[in-house]
């Protein structure tokens, strides 16, 4: 607990308390980790019907000005020029050592206005990072985190539940695309994105509108879901969590994020990423399934191949969707699907696990159409 600094609250904090949410300190924010139904029920709602998450703690940065797109091309490894207006991309900031400063979503709104969505825990670091990179570009960088509340509705029923109250035709918003529109009269960005592996939307609205929007969506049948379920859902879908799968020391290539990098363009940190590839750090992120009972490997658990320590677990849990104990971890890149490793579940005790393909579970999430 960071008691020296006052913990921040989203506009929905009182609502979470009213709903019986168990509140924890998450990256300096007072956030619910679960509601009274529990993580497994919340997980089930999202997978089978529809869940609602308050993700207002996420940070936002506006980049604007004449050189917006040129600057974004330099700022992140993903090709922004090829994106259409109204398109979203998943990307990251690369540091000078081939590692990752943070992962992010980029919203290509207009030629002179782009929105970045970043992790709550990294807001100050990221704003400083983007401002430092912007030197020499004719752009303005603005921390807009206080301008937005963010609510994510996720699950196979999300579209049909929201559509009657939406000012836009939701089925026309492709995966990883967004529009500005209204839901129940509340204006904001409607984005077909998420962090659960299910279809759904993320709404970026004025903080004052968060409570009425939240209550309307609950009234329509979405069930509140909190950080515990969110982590379990994203883990099954094998989405990265900054601080677990990726950090300042992991390269996007090792993490399996080569697809976000356009090596044909220049971007900050490119040389370091290339250098790390050539030196071949020799490790990669891989999925595993426990083939023996004994416990659940967790973040930081060691992985052994024979009598050699060979890697580390980034996230582990029992996947309710496939009813198996699974984990992600960094291991030598020679490890192939079907290979057996030993993984520590507590000091001195290991169990056998088998390398398997990822994601562990594929939900209702749409795939991005090839342009």
């Amino acid at each position: 607990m960071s008691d020296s600094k006052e913990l921040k609250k989203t506009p929905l904090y009182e609502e979470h308390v009213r709903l019986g949410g168990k509140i924890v300190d998450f990256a300096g924010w007072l956030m619910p980790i679960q509601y009274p139904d529990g993580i497994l029920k919340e997980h089930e709602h999202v997978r089978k019907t529809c869940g609602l998450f308050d993700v207002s703690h996420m940070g936002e940065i506006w980049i604007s000005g004449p050189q917006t797109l040129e600057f974004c091309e330099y700022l992140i490894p993903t090709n922004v020029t090829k994106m259409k207006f109204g398109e979203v991309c998943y990307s990251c900031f690369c540091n000078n050592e081939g590692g990752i400063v943070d992962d992010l979503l980029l919203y290509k709104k207009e030629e002179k206005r782009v929105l970045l969505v970043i992790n709550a825990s990294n807001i100050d670091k990221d704003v400083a990072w983007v401002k430092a990179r912007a030197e020499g570009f004719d752009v303005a960088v603005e921390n807009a985190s206080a301008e937005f509340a963010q609510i994510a509705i996720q699950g196979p029923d999300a579209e049909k539940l929201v559509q009657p109250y939406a000012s836009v035709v939701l089925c026309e918003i492709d995966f990883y695309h967004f529009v500005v529109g209204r839901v129940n009269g509340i204006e904001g960005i409607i984005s077909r994105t998420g962090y659960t592996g299910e279809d759904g939307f993320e709404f970026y609205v004025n903080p004052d509108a968060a409570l009425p929007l939240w209550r309307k969506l609950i009234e329509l049948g979405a069930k509140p879901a909190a950080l515990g379920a969110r982590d379990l859902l994203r883990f099954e879908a094998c989405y990265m969590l900054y601080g677990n799968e990726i950090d300042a020391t992991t390269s996007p290539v090792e993490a399996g994020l080569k697809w976000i990098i356009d090596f044909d363009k220049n971007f900050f940190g490119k040389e370091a990423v290339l250098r790390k590839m050539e030196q071949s750090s020799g490790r990669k992120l891989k999925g595993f399934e426990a083939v023996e009972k004994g416990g659940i490997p967790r973040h930081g658990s060691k992985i052994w191949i024979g009598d050699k320590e060979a890697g580390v677990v980034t996230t582990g849990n029992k996947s309710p969707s496939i009813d198996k104990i699974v984990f992600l971890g960094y291991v030598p890149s020679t490890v192939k699907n079907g290979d057996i490793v030993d993984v520590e579940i507590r000091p001195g005790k290991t169990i056998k696990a088998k390398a398997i393909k990822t994601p562990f579970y594929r939900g209702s999430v749409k795939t991005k159409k090839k342009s």
Partner: protein
Amino acid sequence: MKKYTKTHEWVLLQGMEATIGISQHAQELLGDVVYADLPSVGKSLKKGEILCSLESVKAAAEVFCPLTGTVKEINETLNDNPEIINQSAEADGWIVRLTITDASEFEGLMDEGAYQTFCAAHQ
């Protein structure tokens, strides 16, 4: 008679047989239990030793043996349905039955009233 430990186990003592589980309070703190690593029948344990570990979707928790004894029976149902601990922590969610060696150890545990006071003070 049922008594509780400071580490949130409950013990129901009938003669020299002790049925052991985790308290309703502990169940709430732990959240959804998804795996129970049960001890083997016949295992001898001293008071305070690790009896087993329970894994929730959030974390792992150790269950400590409240009394010295030998594992007589384990709740096999927990292998496939560990969620019973959440549904019925102090009845169907029992973990082991122990044949104890020293009934006087039971005296040192808290009765329900004392345990509730203990929990309230440690919120």
